[in-house]
């Protein structure tokens, strides 16, 4: 399973016009000047995979994730991210070569999820991804500043990390 595409619409600094990033296996680097939106792209992955803490995406509440119009533009009506998974090897329990997972947050702060454009409860998405993508309890997401936290960690905190993985 790998991600073949991610689409952002109205998500953080990305406007209401859909932004598409086609992806392939291997190593992809996201580059650009300070403040251009790299971490926002990283957070889009976290968001669509079900992140429940707005704080880890640097938002006080979920509706803060919605494009606010920038400099005198219009705010977006909602923030939506879609992740396309290549399922050509049939590893996911979905009868389709591509599995599209979408999440939207509306101005009232409520979130909705879809799998292949069919509305589903969040739990369905979490079950689908299971150990394949979002390795619960693993460290496949390393956000900006996490390495510094690892550096400053006390020996007890470090041992607790191993605890949590056991």
């Amino acid at each position: 399973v790998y991600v073949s595409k991610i689409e952002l619409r109205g998500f953080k600094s990305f406007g209401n016009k859909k932004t598409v990033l086609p992806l392939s296996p291997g190593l992809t680097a996201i580059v650009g000047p300070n403040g251009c939106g790299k971490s926002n792209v990283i957070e889009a992955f976290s968001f669509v995979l079900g992140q429940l803490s707005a704080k880890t995406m640097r938002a006080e509440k979920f509706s803060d994730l919605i494009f606010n119009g920038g400099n005198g533009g219009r705010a977006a009506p909602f923030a939506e991210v879609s992740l396309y998974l290549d399922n050509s090897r049939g590893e996911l329990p979905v009868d389709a070569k591509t599995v599209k997972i979408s999440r939207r947050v509306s101005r009232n702060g409520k979130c909705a999820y879809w799998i292949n454009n069919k509305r589903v409860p969040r739990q369905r998405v979490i079950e689908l991804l299971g150990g394949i993508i979002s390795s619960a309890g693993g460290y496949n997401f390393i956000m900006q500043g996490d390495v510094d936290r690892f550096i400053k960690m006390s020996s007890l905190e470090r041992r607790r990390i191993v605890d949590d993985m056991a």
Partner: protein
Amino acid sequence: KTEVFMETFDKISKNFTKIFETLSPGGTAELVLENPNAPLEGGLEIEARPAGKRVLRADAMSGGEKALTAVAFIFALQRVKPATIYVMDEIDAHLDPQNLKRVAKMLKESSKKSQTIVATLRDPVMSAADRLFGVNMDKNGESHIVSVELTGTK
């Protein structure tokens, strides 16, 4: 309970040493339980011996050595619970050009098995990538993806 801990600890520990030795050639490092008989009653220390140096507790190392050790620890945790995608944001601060090159090479290697997306400001990581997305913010505060560079087979 302690058995489950020790099983996981051993896996992480072996991976950590292997990874550190690759990132710091000529050096070695290990995870050390403060209380080996009652691991859950103590903490977990990192003892590293960079090439040509005596063993140092991780807090006695230089800024960049601490960063490299932390990255090795994170990679070791990832090996224990492998995922099909890794998403990492700027893990390359504080690393000198040679250490950075080795981290970039390791990212490249492991990306052959697990799709890896990294945000970075630094050249060696950019050059190791198979694909590059440039992000830009326009005068209206809106982000755009401005370049997609497929570097073909590397």
